[in-house]
């Protein structure tokens, strides 16, 4: 027999080491052994109990089984690891024993292992039973809660019944009724209880039990369709292993709440065996024992489809809102009769701040206005193969403000081709429209300005080709479209082309405006003069075209020419008497200085000077008179004139002059000559002028003044036998400063003055002559007062 004390001491010494090795074996086969230190202490305690059992002379079966049970409490859920666990224990206990010692303890060691195993299994079995009981209890407790509520309801009923009983003690029948009611309530309660039991047993939701660290202790078979794991695959694993990572934080938060003793509901995503993510909803309650949470019981249901449906709905809703509400387009949908199906916020806002108020009358007035024809025209044209129409519409708000909307209409048709719905998308284009209208108006204004301008407006390109011209083809004289594209200079006379082209080039080269005059020459119209201003039309700082505004100046040119001649003639007409006056007066001065003055000659020369000064004066006065007559600024008196008296007056006045030249003045005036209306003084001047001319150009013979009535007019003629007029000059004698014979007195304005006065009286004046030396007849007409009366 070896010394037991030695062996005991050796084993006691190694107790911690044995426990540590044992722990390591257990850890490899167990889940959920959370705290190594605590577990090691627990195992060391078991080793401490196993050593005396090993060394005892009489083996204590009960103690060995108890150690086994204690071991089961540590890792009962892994019975398959029991063999190895006990094997390690046995190996470690006997590790440093001598052969003798081993032989001595071997029977006890065999017993120890065997009995520990028995104890372990019996304990594990009991615990599993207890688990099952706990699960049942958990389920029942849930039912119990519901039942509690019912019981409470019953209790309230009871109390009410009691109250009433107290109140109605005397009414036994009522009491009995109450009792019957109570009985019915009891029965209802019983039925309810059965119903809940049924429910739980047939429930498709998953029922689970996890421990305080989350290890699955139980899970109902309905988990398999959800997660793809059989219950046996899940038990012992931590529920956190299945939580979808992004939801882990909220899961842990909920679990902490549970460990704190509070019920929790939650929704998480979990990962199935094949890697799918599913949404589950949990209802969990902690189970408290000995003041700490021991387990968590709960029900879990698959809400994936509901959540997905919800999410899809939310997403669609959000997208729809984003599309419809967040834009400025006005959107509405309506039935063909105008009934509103939908209007977006933009449209509602639009209606609030402008236009036709509300959609109460339907959508048609808003979209189509009050014109039904418009609706028929637009909607009537829509077909299943042509379901979109776009149009612009002007609408007037309640305060008269005008807005323009552009609508795009989309129709929905049934399979039968029946129009069922219209969608209108509108956009406020008022600003654009206003700008458009303003532009159009402005364009029209400019166009009308150009088209109606009396001037010719021409635009030219850089080579002087005609791009545009107004008045094209407006009448036969004006050019037509064919001039476009041709060079402007082609239309002017050759001698003006270079200068015109030069002006055009200058506009393009320097951008300076130019003035040019040029003539055209056509067979039909003769030479016509045009004056043009040429300016630059700029685009982006560059001269893009030349704008030429031109007007015909043919008349002005003719007048210029007349004016030039006039100035020349006037200077001649004034200069001749002036020269004679000056020369004669100078000569007179010299003559008077001489020693012997020839008085007679001095007198003649002196008179000559005076006569010419007088003539000069007359010339100036005549020109002034003519200017005033032609300008129409002379006032005409209106009096009744007897021409016979007027003629005699003139002849009397001219008598001496005529006699000096040996001429005879005669009057041939009808006795019944009607009176004429007019300015006596001016008509006197006309007649005087004509008689004076006749005397001037006659050397002998008679000068006859006649007046007679011819129709509604009185005709007055002055005929002489003088020099006559060359045929080519007949038409020119009334032009001012025209003088066929320059040597005669006068300035050539006399006949022009006569013409102006006669025409102002509504008459005509003319000259007749058979030629040089054949005498001349000057005649004019005046309307008689009787004719004038009739005329008016």
């Amino acid at each position, binding site marked *: 027999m070896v010394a037991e004390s030695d062996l005991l001491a050796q084993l006691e010494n190694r107790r911690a080491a044995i426990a540590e090795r044992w722990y390591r074996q257990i850890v490899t086969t167990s889940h959920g052994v959370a705290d190594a230190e605590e577990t090691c202490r627990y195992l060391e305690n078991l080793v401490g109990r196993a050593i005396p059992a090993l060394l005892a002379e009489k083996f204590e079966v009960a103690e060995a089984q108890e150690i086994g049970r204690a071991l089961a409490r540590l890792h009962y859920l892994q019975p398959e690891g029991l063999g190895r666990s006990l094997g390690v224990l046995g190996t470690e206990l006997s590790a440093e024993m001598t052969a003798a010692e081993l032989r001595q303890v071997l029977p006890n060691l065999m017993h120890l292992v065997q009995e520990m195993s028995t104890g372990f299994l019996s304990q594990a079995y009991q615990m599993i039973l207890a688990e099952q009981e706990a699960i049942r209890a958990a389920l029942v407790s849930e039912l119990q809660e519901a039942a509690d509520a019912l019981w409470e309801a019953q209790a309230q009923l009871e109390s009410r019944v009691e109250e009433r009983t107290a109140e109605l003690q005397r009414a036994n029948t009522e009491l009995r009724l109450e009792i019957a009611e109570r009985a019915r309530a009891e029965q209802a309660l019983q039925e309810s209880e059965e119903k809940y039991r049924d429910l739980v047993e047939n429930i498709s939701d998953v029922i689970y039990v996890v421990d305080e660290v989350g290890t699955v202790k139980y899970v109902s078979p309905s988990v398999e369709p959800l997660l793809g794991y059989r219950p046996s695959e899940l038990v012992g694993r931590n529920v956190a292993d299945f939580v979808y990572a992004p939801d882990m934080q909220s899961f842990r938060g909920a679990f902490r709440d549970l460990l704190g003793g509070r019920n929790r509901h939650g929704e998480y995503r979990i990962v199935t065996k094949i890697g799918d993510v599913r949404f589950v909803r949990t209802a969990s309650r902690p189970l408290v024992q000995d003041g700490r949470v021991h387990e968590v019981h709960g029900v879990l249901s698959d809400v994936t489809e509901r959540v997905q449906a919800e999410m899809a709905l939310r997403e669609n809703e959000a997208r729809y809102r984003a599309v419809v509400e967040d834009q400025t387009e006005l959107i509405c949908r309506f039935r063909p009769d105008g009934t509103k199906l939908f209007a977006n916020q933009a449209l509602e806002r639009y209606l609030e701040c402008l236009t036709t108020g509300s959609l109460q009358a339907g959508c048609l007035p808003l979209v189509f206005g009050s014109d039904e024809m418009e609706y028929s025209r637009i909607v009537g044209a829509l077909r299943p193969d042509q379901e979109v129409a776009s149009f612009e519409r002007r609408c007037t708000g309640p305060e008269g403000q005008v807005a323009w909307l552009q609508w795009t209409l989309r129709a929905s048709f049934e399979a039968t081709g029946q129009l069922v719905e219209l969608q209108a998308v509108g956009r406020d284009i008022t600003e654009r429209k206003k700008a458009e209208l303003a532009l159009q108006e402005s364009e029209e204004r400019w166009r009308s300005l150009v088209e109606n301008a009396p001037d010719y407006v021409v635009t030219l390109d850089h080579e002087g080709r005609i791009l545009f011209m107004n008045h094209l083809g407006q009448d036969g004289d004006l050019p037509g479209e064919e001039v476009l594209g041709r060079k402007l200079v082609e239309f002017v006379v050759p001698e003006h082309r270079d200068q015109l082209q030069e002006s055009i080039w200058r506009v393009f080269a320097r951008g300076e405006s130019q003035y040019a005059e040029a003539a055209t020459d056509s067979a039909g119209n003769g030479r016509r003069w045009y004056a043009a201003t040429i300016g630059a039309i700029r685009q982006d700082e560059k001269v893009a075209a030349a704008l030429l505004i031109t007007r015909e100046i043919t008349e002005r040119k003719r007048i210029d020419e007349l004016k030039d001649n006039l100035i020349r003639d006037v200077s001649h007409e004034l200069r001749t008497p002036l020269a004679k006056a000056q020369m004669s007066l100078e000569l007179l001065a010299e003559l008077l200085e001489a020693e012997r003055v020839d008085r007679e000659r001095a007198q003649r020369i002196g008179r000559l000077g005076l006569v010419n000064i007088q003539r000069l004066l007359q010339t100036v006065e005549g020109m002034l008179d003519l200017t005033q007559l032609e300008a129409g600024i002379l006032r005409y008196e209106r009096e009744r004139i007897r021409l016979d008296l007027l003629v005699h007056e003139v002849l009397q006045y001219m008598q001496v002059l005529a006699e000096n030249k040996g001429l005879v003045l005669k009057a041939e005036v009808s006795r019944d000559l009607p009176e004429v209306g007019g300015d006596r003084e001016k008509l006197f001047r006309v007649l005087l002028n004509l008689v004076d001319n006749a005397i001037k150009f006659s050397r002998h013979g008679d000068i006859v003044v006649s007046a007679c009535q011819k129709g509604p007019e009185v005709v007055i003629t002055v005929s002489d036998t003088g020099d006559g007029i060359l045929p080519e000059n007949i038409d020119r004698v009334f032009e001012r400063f025209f003088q066929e014979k320059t*040597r005669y007195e006068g300035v050539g304005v006399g006949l022009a003055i006569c013409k102006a006065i006669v025409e102002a009286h509504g008459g005509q004046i003319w000259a007749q002559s058979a030629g040089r030396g054949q005498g001349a007849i000057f005649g004019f007409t005046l309307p008689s007062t009787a004719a004038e009366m009739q005329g008016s």
Partner: protein
Amino acid sequence: MTKTILLVEDDPELQEIYLAMLENQDCRILQAADGREALEQIRDVQPDLILLDIILDEMMGDELFMKLKTDPLTASTPVVLATVLPEERCHQLLEVDPATMFLRKPFRRSQLLEAVRLGFAQSAVKQAGQSGD
């Protein structure tokens, strides 16, 4: 030897003035009222000087002037042109014979006498040339 002046002037007033201006100048003055008369007078008497008003009635003075200057008989006869026109208007005539003297009306007696003196001098040179032949 007394010199001869042909005065071609159709205006009687001017005739009077010219005659008064040329009085006491020891020369013979012939008168013509128009171009035709002037040509007739020239055929009869070769004047030493012609005083010609440029605007005449029947035949314009410039027409007469050209005729005189193209006729070998009168081409070298000095001419005094009297006119109210400015000198530039008579440019063409003066180019035909640069020796022609120009008087714009109004002019002074002294101006006329100076022109006459110069004309006579030209005439003297011409006659000297002729007698030398």
